[in-house]
């Protein structure tokens, strides 16, 4: 003990002497400055919020966790002829926070389409040198669509007008007295707005106009909605610019929707007056559907929808819905709608899978939509929790893909002749699975979309990928497999933002907020954690935050807490930076065994200070590049040709042990180089001359002491013909050409084309 201390302090002196000596010799070489902990494996105390009583270090809701509640009672009327929506609502807002609130913030999302909206003002413009008359008129002559909210009144419980201030898409209700913790307040708002043709004016809500003059409405963000008040943001009142979606409070809804009497409708919640709005024949079919688990049952037939589409009723009909514990409300209504439904058997519940679509969507929709909804509920429930709502509806709306609780809009229709391509079919299936999947993230696991698009889109795209493969094992998935994200990750860094960026400030929205996080989760599941650990941790996150408001940290912490896999390096690299993966084979040296030392090795003992022990004899490993390499030794190693080893084995092992000894014949030292900033495990495939392969996996932690190179030795009984890193393209390595030894020749695409 003492000796070694003495030795090491001597060593320290010796080293410092040498460095002094060096300094004298080369004066220009300056002593390097110190540095902070820049190790890629350092824990994330510097970036993550400090855990507290609201949100624990384990990633779970803490003992002081709270969330607000907002209940809505609404009467809505949609005027199809004049494209207007009229509404009034009574909101009961519960303050469950420990603070008193002097004011409330209400979201007026439609104001993004108001004449005074600032959304168009933050995009850059430039004179276009040539314009069609249509575009010229639109750009310079039209005053544009006015789709903002017109607030008629805001009243308190007793009917007295309340003071409010509108700041673009946010309205502050000024309370006469602060709303105390544990108290509730009731207020009413009456409003109307012009409904946009979303195919012309854009948007996630609006109507589609058919050549026959009918409209198909997909209505959302149609009512003043409570903003979220929470322990992380206070009021989440970041303006709605158009991209970063929504942050919404849970509550119970009672909504009456009045539309022309010949409309068919679906909306969030359970229909309370089905008998009043369905024919008796349709009621019978609905009852049948509730007990049919193998295929959709048509409830409104194509003939019925086509007949309805020919009229235009002047009468009105009111549809009454109730929904519990939802964060939003969506409506789709049209006289063109057909409807089919089937029941889905989950472990504990039997929700309905429903599709509503115009005849133009057939034959495609009748065949696939409801089945895709059912598959989504099954796969997602397996990975999270049993679907807690009574139904999930897929609405056919061209050019859309948008989610609301229990209902979503999806594009994809056949050509007018009824034929469709695989691209349309799989595009439609993908979007249905994706949007129905959003019921889990963010409708139930209610993350803040205004702040973090990836939290719902990334997690949802990941489960969408798993669902697609369960629906059809040949599904042409485009997001999930690691190789698919490579072209994004190796792109120009000026156009790439870390995943952990606000929703409005992202370049390449789809790859950033959908593709990359989904791929990251897939890499964790397939390569870093394994299915069992990953699935348990992911499910734990979903169950912990079901009907709550999680933050990114809650997700990151839960994934580690439930699995005992330290992933700080992964979150830091994949989510907080734009680092990419590029691991290369730098050098491979083949070593041969010799009993003759080289000159250098003769002094081996002296150099390493092994004076008194380990006297040998030694087996020497010499590589071909050594000048003293003896060509005679270049052959497969055979233990029986080396007497000292043979004797050692004979003396030290029992017959049983001897039988288990390996017989290595070839020795390789492989140096790996990490050219990219992102850490990854090293996945090595040795391909032997006989065509067989052997796989080795070195965990990410191999990089913890040296972030640029690492070495491994392989002793094999067959000659290695080729070394291939990441042979199954699991790690999103952006340059696979340097993953091979020996180097393969690469041809330019254009040279190939030239030959043809």
């Amino acid at each position, binding site marked *: 003990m003492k000796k070694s201390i003495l030795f090491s302090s001597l060593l320290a002196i010796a080293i410092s002497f040498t460095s002094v000596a060096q300094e004298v010799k080369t004066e220009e070489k300056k002593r390097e400055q110190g540095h902070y902990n820049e190790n890629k494996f350092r824990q994330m105390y510097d970036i993550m919020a400090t855990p507290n009583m609201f949100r624990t270090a384990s990633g779970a809701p803490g003992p002081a966790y709270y969330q607000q509640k907002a209940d809505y009672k609404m009467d809505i009327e949609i005027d199809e002829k004049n494209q207007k929506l009229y509404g009034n609502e009574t909101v009961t807002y519960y303050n469950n926070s420990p603070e008193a609130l002097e004011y409330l913030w209400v979201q007026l999302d439609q104001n993004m389409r108001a004449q005074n909206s600032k959304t168009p003002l933050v995009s850059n*413009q*430039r*004179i*276009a*040198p040539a314009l069609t008359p249509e*575009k010229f008129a639109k750009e310079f002559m039209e005053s544009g669509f006015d789709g903002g909210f017109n607030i008629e009144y805001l009243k308190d419980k007793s009917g007295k007008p309340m003071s409010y201030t509108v700041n673009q898409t946010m309205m502050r209700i000024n309370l006469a007295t602060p709303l105390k913790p544990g108290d509730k307040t009731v207020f009413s708002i009456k409003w109307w707005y012009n409904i946009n043709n979303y195919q012309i004016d854009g948007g*996630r809500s609006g109507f589609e106009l058919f050549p026959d003059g009918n409209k198909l409405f997909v209505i959302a963000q149609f009512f003043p909605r409570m903003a979220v008040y929470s322990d992380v943001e206070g009021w989440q009142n970041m303006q709605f610019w158009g991209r970063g*979606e929504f942050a919404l409070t849970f509550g119970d809804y009672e909504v009456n929707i009045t539309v022309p009497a010949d409309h068919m409708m679906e909306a969030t919640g359970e229909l309370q007056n089905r008998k009043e709005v369905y024919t008796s024949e349709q009621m019978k079919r609905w009852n049948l559907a509730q007990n049919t688990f193998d295929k959709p049952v048509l409830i409104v037939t194509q003939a019925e929808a086509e007949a309805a589409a020919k009229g235009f009723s002047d009468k009105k009909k009111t549809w009454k819905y109730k929904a519990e514990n939802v964060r939003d409300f969506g409506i789709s209504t049209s006289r063109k709608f057909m409807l089919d439904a089937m029941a889905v058997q989950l472990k504990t519940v039997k929700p309905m899978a429903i599709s509503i679509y115009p005849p133009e969507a057939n034959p495609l929709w009748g065949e696939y939509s409801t089945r895709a909804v059912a598959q989504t509920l099954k796969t997602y429930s397996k990975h999270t929790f049993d679907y807690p709502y009574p139904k999930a509806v897929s609405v056919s709306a061209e*050019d859309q*893909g*948008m*989610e609301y609780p229990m209902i979503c809009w999806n*594009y994809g229709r056949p050509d007018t002749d009824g034929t469709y*391509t*695989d*691209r*349309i079919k799989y*595009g439609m299936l*993908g*979007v249905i699975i*994706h949007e129905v999947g959003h019921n889990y993230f963010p409708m139930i696991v209610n993350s803040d979309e205004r702040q973090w698009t990836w939290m719902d*889109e990334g997690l949802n*795209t990941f489960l*969408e990928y798993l669902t697609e493969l369960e629906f059809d094992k040949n599904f*042409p998935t*485009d*997001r999930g497999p690691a190789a*698919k*994200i*490579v*072209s*994004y990750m*190796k*792109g*120009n860094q*000026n*156009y790439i933002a870390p995943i952990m960026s606000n929703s409005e400030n992202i370049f*390449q*929205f*789809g*790859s950033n907020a*959908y*593709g990359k996080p989904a791929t990251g989760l897939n890499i964790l599941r397939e390569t870093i954690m394994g299915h069992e650990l990953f699935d348990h941790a992911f499910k734990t996150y979903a169950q912990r935050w079901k009907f709550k408001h999680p933050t990114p940290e809650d997700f990151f912490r839960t994934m580690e807490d439930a699995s005992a896999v330290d992933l700080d390096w992964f979150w830091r690299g994949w989510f907080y930076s734009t680092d990419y993966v590029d691991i290369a084979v730098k050098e491979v040296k083949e070593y041969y065994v010799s009993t003759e030392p080289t000159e250098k090795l003769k002094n081996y003992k002296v150099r390493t200070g092994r004076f008194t022990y380990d006297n040998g004899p030694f087996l020497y490993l010499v590589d071909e590049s050594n000048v003293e390499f003896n060509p005679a030794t270049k052959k497969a190693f055979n233990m029986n040709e080396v007497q000292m080893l043979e004797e050692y084995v004979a003396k030290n092992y029992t017959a049983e042990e001897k039988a288990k000894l390996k017989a290595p014949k070839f020795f390789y030292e492989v140096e790996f180089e990490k050219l990219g900033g992102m850490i990854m495990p090293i996945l090595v495939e040795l391909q032997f001359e006989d065509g067989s392969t052997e796989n080795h996996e070195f965990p990410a932690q191999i990089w913890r002491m040296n972030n640029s190179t690492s070495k491994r030795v392989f002793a094999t009984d067959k000659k290695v013909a080729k070394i291939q890193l990441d042979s199954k393209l699991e790690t999103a390595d952006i*340059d696979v*050409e340097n993953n091979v030894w020996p180097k393969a*020749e*690469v*041809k*330019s*695409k*254009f*040279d190939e*084309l030239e030959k*043809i």
Partner: protein
Amino acid sequence: MKNKYKIVLLLTVFTLMTSFAIHKFYVSVTQIDYVPKKQRIEITSRIFIDDLDKGLKNKYSKNVYLATKKEIPEADKLIQQYLEEKIRLVVNNKPLKLQYISKEVEDDVLICYLKASYSEKITTFEIFNTILTEMFSDQKNIVHTDINSNKKSVLLTYSERSTLLEF
């Protein structure tokens, strides 16, 4: 060897937005490289198949059924005609004749290969790219270039149709 290898790398570009996203994004990515050794300008354009399908139908009033079993025989000709109009290069102040080579399908993206012969030293390089801007007002055309060992990326849109690179 090394040079070739670099070119291949540059050919593969950004992942394009795909249709499963919430709202449709209209984008194309074009890589333009000058390879003096081969006296060649190489152009690789990646365009969403469904968008281009609509664009061709709009322009030539013909259903092309791109990348399906029903694809019409003159598809290549129409694409060539379309791209020749939509991608224009003016090098050293002289318009360049582009030659369409072929196309390739990758998922829902069509990769189109074009080239032009060029052997002089490049001092100015102007790129017009109006792919699908006549169809979609928010069409974004990303152009990456590697010319005279300078890598540049520009975003061209309906209102910003061209860029001039000077060396």
